[in-house]
């Protein structure tokens, strides 16, 4: 995925206005172990939108993502996907876990790990090899198919997990602090690659991060959660032109203004 951003025209309007929601949280509350994790959270995500969720530790942002994945069921309220209630995980909603080392099958090679998604989707054996090769190229792992996860760097493992998620041909990609454990250079590279993948596929993304700059850099919209219990505290559209650039985008006054605003929000929420 060696994109040439200068020739790319943005597919979406600069300021993203949600239309019919693809994923909707309708007054969600969730109690786990006698503790209220989320209280009355409502939010809509439109098809093709890149929504970032930020918040201090323990604000329930990962929990919100797991609700969207169908891994948790809300105590009250409901999560809908295209109008239908989410009761179990769906194959067209993929989730990229933060701890890539635990989410990959250590006894399968890179090819085998991607294959797992294709096997369960019922892709005929004859077609798998080509599809896997294509996906590995897409995430920048073209010559690493025979490696085991333990033989790969953290960045490569996370790419592999993304490849497995893309093999699901998802309509929605949920990402839970996917680059939190990676070094700064690897993280920036992967941010751009994800933006390019999303641009090319038009997939909806909900991206959880504690890195404010990452949220602004990637998102069409950022939602900030307040902790104890988790609830929506701030919501802001990101009016930055696409394609985004690691240097120039981050230098724009609007970027800096948003960063200040979100920083103040996080600081206030932790007080």
């Amino acid at each position: 995925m060696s994109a040439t951003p200068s020739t790319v025209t943005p597919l979406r309007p600069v300021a993203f206005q949600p239309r019919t929601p693809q994923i909707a949280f309708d007054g969600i509350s969730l109690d786990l172990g006698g503790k209220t994790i989320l209280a009355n959270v409502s939010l809509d995500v439109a098809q093709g939108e890149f929504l970032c969720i930020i918040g201090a530790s323990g604000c329930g942002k990962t929990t919100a993502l797991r609700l969207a994945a169908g891994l948790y069921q809300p105590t009250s309220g409901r999560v809908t996907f295209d109008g239908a209630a989410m009761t179990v995980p769906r194959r067209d909603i993929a989730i990229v876990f933060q701890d890539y080392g635990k989410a990959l099958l250590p006894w399968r090679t890179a090819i085998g790990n991607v294959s797992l998604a294709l096997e369960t989707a019922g892709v005929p054996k004859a077609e798998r090899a080509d599809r896997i090769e294509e996906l590995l190229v897409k995430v920048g792992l073209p010559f690493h198919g025979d490696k085991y996860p333990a033989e790969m760097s953290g960045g490569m493992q996370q790419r592999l997990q993304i490849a497995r998620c893309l093999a699901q041909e998802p309509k929605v990609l949920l990402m839970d602090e996917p680059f939190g454990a990676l070094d700064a250079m690897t993280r920036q590279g992967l941010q751009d690659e994800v933006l390019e993948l999303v641009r090319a596929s038009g997939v909806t993304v909900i991206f959880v991060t504690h890195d404010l700059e990452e949220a602004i850099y990637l998102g069409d919209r950022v939602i900030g959660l307040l902790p104890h219990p988790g609830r929506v505290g701030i919501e802001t559209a990101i009016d930055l032109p696409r394609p985004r650039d690691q240097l120039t985008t981050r230098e724009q006054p609007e970027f800096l203004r948003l960063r200040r605003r979100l920083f103040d929000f996080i600081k206030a929420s932790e007080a």
Partner: protein
Amino acid sequence: MIPHGLKPLLLPAVLIAAFEIWTRVTNMQSDSLAPPSAIAAAMIEALSGGELWTATRDTLASTLAGLAIGSAIGLSLGIALGISNVFNRLMEVTIEAIRPIPSIALLPIALIALGFGYRMEIVIVAFACIWPMLILSRAAVGGIEPRLMEVARVLRLTPADRVRKIVIPAALPRIFVAFRLAASIALIVAVTCEIAINPIGLGASIMAAQQALRADLMLAYLIWIGAIGYLLNAGLLFAQASLFGRAALAGGTP
């Protein structure tokens, strides 16, 4: 100089030589001990005869059959219990009530029900093998990285695929350790069975040598049983290393 690889053998060699000299100097007469040279002679005699091989076959047949049956039962129960919390709680009291029964204590019942011979011994060995397999495979399945089970849920793996593609490969290195443990228990129980009551196999041969006051032959059988146990474990270790080199490496505690 002594070659490096032979150094660990030095101490046993010296001890055996010292024992040999001691038995000759004191002109030892014993029903329970024999000089190493006499044991070696008895061993050669036994190896060239047919009785030792028949006995070995009988013991190994019972050991392996019991191991196979017990492991299969223990493994399937262990996996089922590891996967299903409800099933685990349902069975907990039953399992904890049956498990402490020493398998050898079942000998009288097995003898009445099945008589002397292979069948009775196989049942006793299988009973003994069920528990380490069940307990350890249950723990192995319970110890599988929860994230992997979530991956299985998100990818919508069928229950059969979850077991086949996630649970068993993830638990396999630890299950194999359980199998090695069960194998050593199987041999112990089989020989014990034969010494106690069952007139076949190496245990019965040891008893026959003892009753014939052939301390040399008795000790030769003892060494032979030890060698078989050693070979059994070495074979399984080799299989483990060649089968799960990668998985054992990645699976954490093998």
